[in-house]
Structure formats: structure tokens, C-alpha cells
């Protein structure tokens, strides 16, 4: 098969799986769902691997989708090292997560079970479309479909009110981003008269222009919403209402990284639009620190992970924002490994604890769930950034790049944010791990003697634990020597980093790691041994501020939700009901009354019909003669 057919096949597998499960899934035996759901994702993974090993690349146009004047939208797929890289992450890590879900969702009844895997496959399809699209229009289609499937999956347990509300919130936030994306695309089209990446990038001006900045900022709105960065971040913690595999797949490994992908894909634009590019770095840096601090006080294990995800994606934004694209994508890969690992391990714990998610009610699980606990520890250490786990190499490469970027005060400033974030990360991660697994069992623990998860849920966790342990050795640039496979691979798609670090960068990395590790251990002293006074006793106002998540939800509620509600209520009472409703129902009543009157003419008597007929003929004759006479 040719490369173009293989590229199409990547999309066809999950689409076919979703269609099959949606149409017949609930009538077929459960085993079909179990095989098809993850199977199609693995099939796409195999195809992607084939492309990867063949060094495939190209821009394949299959057919013209819309042709209207100068507006031409082809259906084209762009295969380059960036899209293959993203596809590998989506189908590889995604395959592991969907396989894990086979066990995790086993409690669901038949129709719900099939529905879940339908949604999952739809999501994988949408995400693949997003990264494979070769033009802005299909990017938007994938972008919106991803938001839609995320909505379905967050609200999967639709009988839970909180899940429905969370789904709605996520959808609204995502649509705000979609609007930004679409407007950005409009600006791009109006400025450069093209929709394909290739044509647009070729038409870009050499120097910065205001329309290019506008487009870059609007696209950034989309990226911010999808990747849950400040100020459109409030949906991600609530999205944890969805089943845990969903959190792992969508809200850790794939969808939320779409913003990073977008900035990377649009790097020719951001390389020129320097202000928007700087904004990317600033948003990332602020979000990284902001989210990490909130994570310190969360008690729900999945919410800690959610804020940690926001924080880590902030790192990726920071990286692509300063032009260290491949470092950002390396962190994307490593984050997919360790965050999916953390979510699925957390899922195992939640599974064992009868759906209890409050860490304060865990404690002492290390002995009872050793395999999950050790896997979780690997993920945690990777998150903290401890050698030799993958998180160290990827995060420190970003920080090193920011630290060493020449003649850039912005890069140094965001490095400072990243540095502090790394320390905070060490602390909250430590708090999470110690509270959950160390110490004595909490008296409120729902299950006295928990059981380890079945192997279908453990094996994916182990595989990711292994990847999180050894994955870093494909690129050890943070230490200043060794392989740099990710950088080499992505060089052709996003360009090489234009500057090199030195020894001071490596020293800074090691210092960061050491301090973060110390804080990881300090959490043990505070939360398990209670040897030190908790920090919250010293600054109670800070504790409150963090628990309220910097009052973002309250702020949005006060300045947007409530005024809108009020406006809507007023509109309903004073405009909709009396004026519009009156007109509509009035017209309806009139039409209905007329209808009744007219239908009375339909008497069923032949003579009446003939009378109307003749009258009509006479009118026609008169009209035509009157016309002739005039």
C-alpha cells in the first residue's frame, strides 16, 4: 500500500470501530466490544509504526471538499515527522488506556459499555484527524470533534448531575476556544487566500504584520481553551467527573496537549508573530505555577492530577513559547507516559476503594496494593523530575533551554516561574503519594482489605511504568551529553533549537532536581510524621485562597454567568414571552383558525368542488384577458 492509503487507514480504523459499536455494539456479545474498542486503536498504531519505520512524509490530497470561487478546501492529510510523532502518542498511549478501560468499565451494563468504547473510538478518530489534517478547515473539524467527544465522555455518567454540569462547562469553554480558532482561520484566509498549511506558510510575510499577530493570538485562544491554560482553565478539574480512563486519555495524554501541537504546527506563524509567541510562553509559565500551587491543597486524588496536568502543559507552552519546540514535544511524550500512568494507577486505587477519591481516606495502601503503589511512585518521581525517570530529562531540557536562551529576558523570567513550579511540584506530589500510600490506613477508609486490580488493568500500568523509567534515555540532552533522538526526529518538522546550553544549565538542572526531591521528602515529615507544623497553619489566608482556586470560578460566576443569567431572564420575561412568543403563537393561532375555516370548504360534495373549479377557471380567464386588454 502506498503512503497515502496508509495515512487514510490510520483514520479509517477508529472511525469504523466507532460506527460498528454505535450501530450494533449493544446487540453483539460483550467480547466484541472488548476486542473492537481497543483493537482499532492498536490497528492504527501498527499503521503509524509502519509509516514511522518507512520515514514516510508527504502532503496527500484525496479530493476537493469545497470549491467556491477562490475558496478551496481539499481533504488532505499531512504526513510529516510531527504528525507521525503525535499519532504514535495518540494511538500508542491511547491504545494502552483503551485496553485498561476494558477492565475499568467492566461494571457497566451492555449498552453503556458499548457506548463508552464508541465514544473512545470517536475521540481517537477526532484526535487523529486533528493532527493529520493538512489544512485549517479539517483542523477545526478535528478540533471541534475532540471537544464534542470530550463532552460525551465527561458526561458519560449522565445520571449524575455533577457530571452533566462538568460536561457542559467543558463544552462551553472549548467552544470559546473553537470560536477563537475559527476567527483565526478567517484572518489567515483573508490575509493569505489559502486554507492548506503548505500554501499559507508559503505566503507568510517575512516581517511581522498586525494581521499575522491577530491570527496568531486568535489561534492561541483556541490552544489555551483546549489545553486548559489560564484564563480558560476552569473546566479541566471539573472534567474529572468522567471515568478515570477518560481522564487519562483525554485530560492527560492527548486532547489537552492539542494546544501544544497547534503552536508547534503553526510555528512558521509564531516564529514571525513575536508578540503572540511571547504570550504563549507567558501563559504557559503563569499557568504552570498557578496550577501547581492549587494542587497543594486538593484532597481529591484526581483533582491533584488534573491541576498537575495543567501545570505540566504550562511547561510545554513555555517551551514552544520560547522556540524550544522539540523540547516541548519531548515533554508532551514523557508527560503522556507518566501522567497516563498516574491516572491509571489512581484509577486502580479508586477501583479498589469503591470509587472513593478523597486521599485523606486512603493511607497505608503500600502494603495492600504494592504493585499499584510502586507504579504510582514511578509516575510521581517522574512528575517531580528525578533521575533517571523520563520526566527529569524532558522537564529539565525545557528549563535548560529557557535558562540558556541568549539575549532573552523573557526566557529567563519564565525560567524562574518554571523553577519555582518544579519545587512546588515536588511538594504536592510528595503530599499525594505519602497521604495515599504511606502511614496507617485512615479510619474512614471505605474498604478494609482492598484487592489489586485485574491484570488487564495492571499490564498497561506496568508498560507505562517501564516507559516512564527508561523512556528518558532516548534523549538525555538535559545532562549535556548522550542521545537526542526526539530532537533529531522532529527537526524536519519544527526546526532545530537555535541555541545550545552549557555547563551552567546542567548544574541548574541538578539543583532543581535536588530541591524538588527534598520537598518531596519534606511532605512526608509534614503529612505522615506530623513532625513539622503544616504550612497552612502559618499562612491560613493562603490556604483559603488556594482552596478557592484563586476565586476564578467565583469571578466567572459573578462577572459572566450571573449577568448572563439575569439578561436571559429579563429577555425571557420582557421580550420573549410577550413580544416574540405573542407574535409566534398569534401567527400560529391565526394559521390554525384559517386552516380550520378553509378546510370547511372541503365538503366532500362534488357540486361544490365543481363550483370552485369553474370559479377558478373564470378567474384565470379574466386575468389573462385583462392582461391582454391593457
Amino acid at each position, binding site marked *: 500500500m502506498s503512503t497515502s492509503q496508509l495515512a487514510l487507514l490510520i483514520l479509517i480504523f477508529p472511525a469504523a470501530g466507532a460506527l460498528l459499536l454505535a450501530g450494533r455494539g449493544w446487540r453483539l456479545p460483550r467480547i466484541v466490544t472488548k476486542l473492537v474498542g481497543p483493537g482499532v486503536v492498536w490497528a492504527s498504531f501498527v499503521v503509524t509504526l509502519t509509516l514511522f519505520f518507512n520515514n514516510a512524509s508527504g502532503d496527500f490530497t484525496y479530493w476537493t471538499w469545497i470549491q467556491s470561487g477562490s475558496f478551496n478546501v481539499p481533504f488532505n492529510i499531512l504526513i510529516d515527522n510531527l504528525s507521525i510523532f503525535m499519532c504514535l502518542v495518540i494511538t500508542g498511549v491511547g491504545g494502552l488506556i483503551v485496553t485498561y478501560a476494558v477492565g475499568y468499565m467492566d461494571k457497566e451494563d451492555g449498552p453503556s459499555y458499548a457506548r463508552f468504547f464508541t465514544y473512545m473510538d470517536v475521540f481517537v478518530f477526532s484526535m487523529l484527524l486533528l493532527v493529520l489534517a493538512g489544512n485549517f478547515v479539517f483542523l477545526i473539524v478535528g478540533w471541534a470533534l475532540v471537544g464534542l467527544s470530550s463532552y460525551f465522555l465527561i458526561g458519560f455518567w449522565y445520571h449524575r448531575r455533577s457530571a452533566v454540569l462538568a460536561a457542559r462547562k467543558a463544552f462551553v469553554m472549548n467552544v470559546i476556544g473553537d470560536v477563537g480558532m475559527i476567527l483565526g482561520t478567517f484572518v489567515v484566509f483573508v490575509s493569505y487566500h489559502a486554507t492548506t498549511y503548505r500554501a499559507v506558510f508559503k505566503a507568510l510575510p517575512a516581517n511581522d504584520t498586525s494581521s499575522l499577530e491577530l491570527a496568531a493570538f486568535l489561534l492561541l485562544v483556541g490552544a489555551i481553551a483546549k489545553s486548559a491554560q489560564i484564563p480558560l482553565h476552569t473546566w479541566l478539574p471539573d472534567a474529572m467527573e468522567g471515568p478515570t480512563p477518560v481522564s487519562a486519555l483525554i485530560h492527560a495524554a492527548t486532547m489537552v496537549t492539542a494546544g501544544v501541537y497547534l503552536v508547534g504546527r503553526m510555528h512558521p506563524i509564531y516564529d514571525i508573530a513575536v508578540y503572540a509567541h511571547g504570550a504563549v510562553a507567558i501563559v504557559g509559565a503563569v499557568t504552570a505555577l498557578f496550577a501547581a500551587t492549587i494542587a497543594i491543597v486538593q484532597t481529591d486524588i484526581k483533582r491533584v492530577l488534573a491541576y498537575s496536568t495543567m501545570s505540566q502543559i504550562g511547561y510545554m507552552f513555555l517551551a514552544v513559547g520560547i522556540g524550544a519546540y522539540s523540547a516541548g514535544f519531548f515533554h508532551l511524550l514523557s508527560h503522556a507516559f507518566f501522567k497516563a500512568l498516574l491516572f491509571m494507577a489512581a484509577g486502580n486505587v479508586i477501583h479498589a476503594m469503591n470509587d472513593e477519591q478523597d486521599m485523606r481516606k486512603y493511607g497505608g495502601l503500600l502494603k495492600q496494593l504494592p504493585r499499584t503503589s510502586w507504579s504510582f511512585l514511578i509516575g510521581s518521581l517522574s512528575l517531580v523530575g528525578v533521575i533517571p525517570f523520563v520526566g527529569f530529562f524532558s522537564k529539565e531540557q525545557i528549563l535548560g533551554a529557557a535558562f540558556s536562551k541568549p539575549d532573552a529576558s523573557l526566557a529567563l523570567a519564565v525560567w524562574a516561574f518554571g523553577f519555582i513550579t518544579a519545587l512546588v511540584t515536588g511538594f504536592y506530589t510528595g503530599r499525594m503519594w505519602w497521604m495515599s500510600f504511606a502511614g496507617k490506613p485512615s479510619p474512614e477508609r471505605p474498604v478494609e482489605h482492598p484487592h489489586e486490580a485485574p491484570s488487564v488493568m495492571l499490564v498497561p500500568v506496568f508498560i507505562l511504568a517501564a516507559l516512564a523509567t527508561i523512556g528518558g534515555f532516548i534523549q538525555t540532552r538535559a545532562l549535556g551529553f548522550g542521545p537526542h533522538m526526539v530532537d533529531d526526529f522532529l527537526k524536519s518538522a519544527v526546526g532545530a533549537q537555535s541555541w545550545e546550553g552549557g555547563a551552567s544549565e546542567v548544574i541548574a538542572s541538578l539543583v532543581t532536581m535536588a530541591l524538588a526531591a527534598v520537598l518531596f521528602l519534606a511532605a512526608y515529615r509534614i503529612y505522615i510524621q506530623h513532625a513539622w507544623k503544616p504550612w497552612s497553619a502559618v499562612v491560613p489566608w493562603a490556604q483559603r485562597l488556594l482552596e478557592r482556586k484563586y476565586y476564578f470560578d467565583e469571578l466567572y460566576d459573578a462577572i459572566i454567568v450571573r449577568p448572563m443569567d439575569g439578561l436571559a431572564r429579563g429577555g425571557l420575561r420582557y421580550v420573549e414571552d410577550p413580544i416574540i412568543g405573542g407574535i409566534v403563537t398569534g401567527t400560529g393561532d391565526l394559521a*390554525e383558525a384559517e386552516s380550520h375555516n378553509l378546510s370547511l370548504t372541503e365538503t366532500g360534495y362534488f357540486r361544490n368542488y365543481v363550483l*370552485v*373549479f369553474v370559479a377558478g377557471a373564470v*378567474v384565470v380567464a379574466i386575468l389573462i384577458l385583462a392582461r391582454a386588454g391593457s
Partner: protein
Amino acid sequence: MIDLSAVHIDYQTVLPELVVTGTIVVVLLLDLVVPPDRRRWLAVVSVVGLAIALIASIPLWGQHRSAFADTMAGDSFAAFFNVLLLAVTILTVLISPRYLRCVHLDFGEYYALVLSAAAGMMLLAAATSLMTIFLGIELLSLALYVLCSFSRLQEHSQESGLKYLLLGGFATGFLLYGMALIYGATGSTTLLGIRAFVTSSPGTNVLLLLGIGFLSVGLAFKASAAPFHMWTPDVYEGAPTIVTTFMSVATKAAAFAAVGRIFVATLPSLEAQWYVPLALIAVLSMSIGNVVAITQSNLKRLLAYSGIAHAGFIFLGILPGTTDGLAASLFYIAAYAAMNFGAFAVVTALDAKGEHADELTYWTGLFYRRPFLATTMTIFMLSLAGIPPTVGFFAKLFVFQALVTAHLWIPLIVGILTTVISLYYYLRVIVVMVTVPEGAPVEREGVGLPMTVVVGLSALGTTVMGLVPQVFGWALQATRF
């Protein structure tokens, strides 16, 4: 002896009609020997004959033949209608055997009559002379009169046939009178001759105009346009549902073929004269059809009024008197054929079950009993209402566009307003179908493979026809006379 050598007989032009006529004879003869429980073979023979005729119609595409001294044309226009009419007839015959057995009407004459009507319609679509137009109309009408009263033991059906016959005879009188006046004014019965006369003597000719007026009355009757529509609800309701399905689509299409040939191809120069009466017919049809449909509680009557309204919409494309406008009408006819045939086919499928399936109350909760039929019916209703992306939307779009191009605002405004009104009753059908019934029995028995295929095909056509740009291109090409 009449010397026939002077008349050039072009067999290729009439081949489709000849095939269908031959099939009638075969079916009639076969009916004598086929045992009653094997009558479905008559349907098979009919379908084969119709399919051959359909294939024979395709070579006419793109040609400009005329035969029998300019009384019949073999052109793209005829080919377009032949394919459309034959497709509708094939679909009708496919779902007939099961329905006829269910309502105990399984007689062989049925197929011969349907084929005769089809032959008449095809003749009408190809006719380029007043004589052949009359011949076509009478051939299709006579067959339909019998078909409407085919259910011999049902008073409703008898009443339907009789009303149609009496009013039809009345309309034929007008039609014939109009033709006589036209002949008197122009001295020619062929459209070619009439056109030549009209272009050569541009002055006002009262005889001719009056003739055109009466001709339009007769054709408007066949197209069930207001104010000559009164028969429609009664006849549609009383006739066997399968017959209603067939005639609601095919008769209208054939009548508009004649309207197109006469008004747009022959008399475009008199547009200023015939515009007002035709616009009145269009506006009245849309208004009366859409408004009265609101209070109907019987689905066949509802669809009858809907058909009256759609006749008005099809007339809109004729009004500018241009071939582009006619192309919009042609597209509308094709769209209407797909969606209305589908809707009536669903009614037929349910009607085969038992009593009163055409009452709207029977449809309560159909989604829970018959998800396939209810889903397809939803598609048809949305399309009839003109909701994108169904073909109904594009059909309305094209005729409205034709009116905008010609600056004909009043019919356009009425068309848009009545479209809004029509939403009310089309959506009501959907609402009724999704309403949860109280203790509804679950029906698991199917409607048969032919019905599933036919309804599915109609739904497919309704969904994709508007999205495939070629279809409108065909309509455009068919109007290049």
C-alpha cells in the same frame, strides 16, 4: 390506404414507451395463465420491462430527435422524465405485491394499469403536440381512475375513483377546449408550429390567450394545484395507499413536464401574459396547501395538502419563463419524487398492517415500535419542510434563487412565509412519532425486504441528492431544448 411512407417513424424515440406498452400486453396475457398464488411474478415481469425501458431512455440523453411529424421528442428533457417516472414506477411495483396481498387486492390487472399510467406519463413527457399531450393525459388518467377505485368493496375507494373521474372529465373538457382555441388561433397543433406562430405575429391574440388559460387550468388540475385541487384530499385518502403513493408523485411530475414544454419551451415570449394567472395558481397552492394541512389529522390528507403546496413551489420555477428556472423546477420535481414517495411508502408499509394506519393517532410512539420506518419518515418530513442538508432544502433554494434572479418578489415572499407555516405540521408528525406511547405493543415483525430497500433508497436519495452537485447539472442540461 394512408401512405405511411411519408411519416418518418423514429423507433428509437418511442422505444421506452414501446417497451412499456409491450410489457402491458405481456402482463395481461401472463395473468391468464399464472395461478393466483404466483402473481408476484407479474410484478417481476413488470419490473424487468420497466428496467429495460429505463435503459432504453438513457441513449436519448443529449439528443434532439423528433418523431411522428414533430409530435414527439426524443431529447434530454424526455430522458430526464423517463428515468424519473420509470424509477418511481419500478419502486411502486416493488412494494406492491406484499401490500396487495395484505389488503386482498392481489389482481393481475393492477400491474397492467400501473404500466398503462406509466406509459401515459412518459408519452406526456415526450409530447410536443397538443394531440399527443391529450393522448398522454387521457392514457394516464383512465388508468388512474380505475386504480383509485381498485378496492371494489370499499365505499371510500369507490367514492375516490368516481370523484376523480367526474372532476377529471370536467378538467379534460377545459383542456380540450383550450387546445381547440389554440389550434383555432394558430392553425397548428404542434408546439413547434405554435412557437413559430407566436414569434412571427407578436400582437395580442385573444383566442390564443384564452386557449392558453384553459390549457393551464387542465394541467393545473392534473398537478393538483389550487384552486383546482379540491379532489386531491378526497381521492388521496380514499384510494388504496399504494395507488396514492404512485400517483402523488408520478402524475405531478408528468403534468409539470407538459407545463414546462408548453410554457417555457414554447411560449416564453408570452410570459408577461401568462405570468399573472400562473403566479396566482402558485401562490394559492402554497397558501391553501400549507395552511389547511395544519389541521389535518389523517396523514394521507396531510400529505395531499402538502402535495398541493409543493405543486405551488414547483410552479415558482416556471414563473420566470426561463430554462434556468425550469431547471430549478425539474430539480424540485426529482426531489419531491424522492421525499414524497418515501413518505407515502412508509404510510403504505404501515397501512398493510391493518385499519386506520393513516390516522395520525396511530403514529404515536412509532419510534419505539418501528425505529427504521420512523427514522426514515423523519428524514422525509424534514426534507419536505426544507431543512438542510436534505434535498428539500436545496430544491427550495434553487426555485427561490430563480425568483430572485427574475426579481419576482411577491411569489417569493409567499413561498418563504408558507414554508415557515409548513414546518408546523411536518414537525408535528415527528413529534407524534417520538411521543412515548402508553403501553404500546412492541412490533417485531418486519415490513419485508422490498419495502426496506425502497424506503431506504428514498431516504438515501433524499439525503444525498442535494449534496451531489451533478443532479442539478442534469436538470440544467435537460432543459436545453
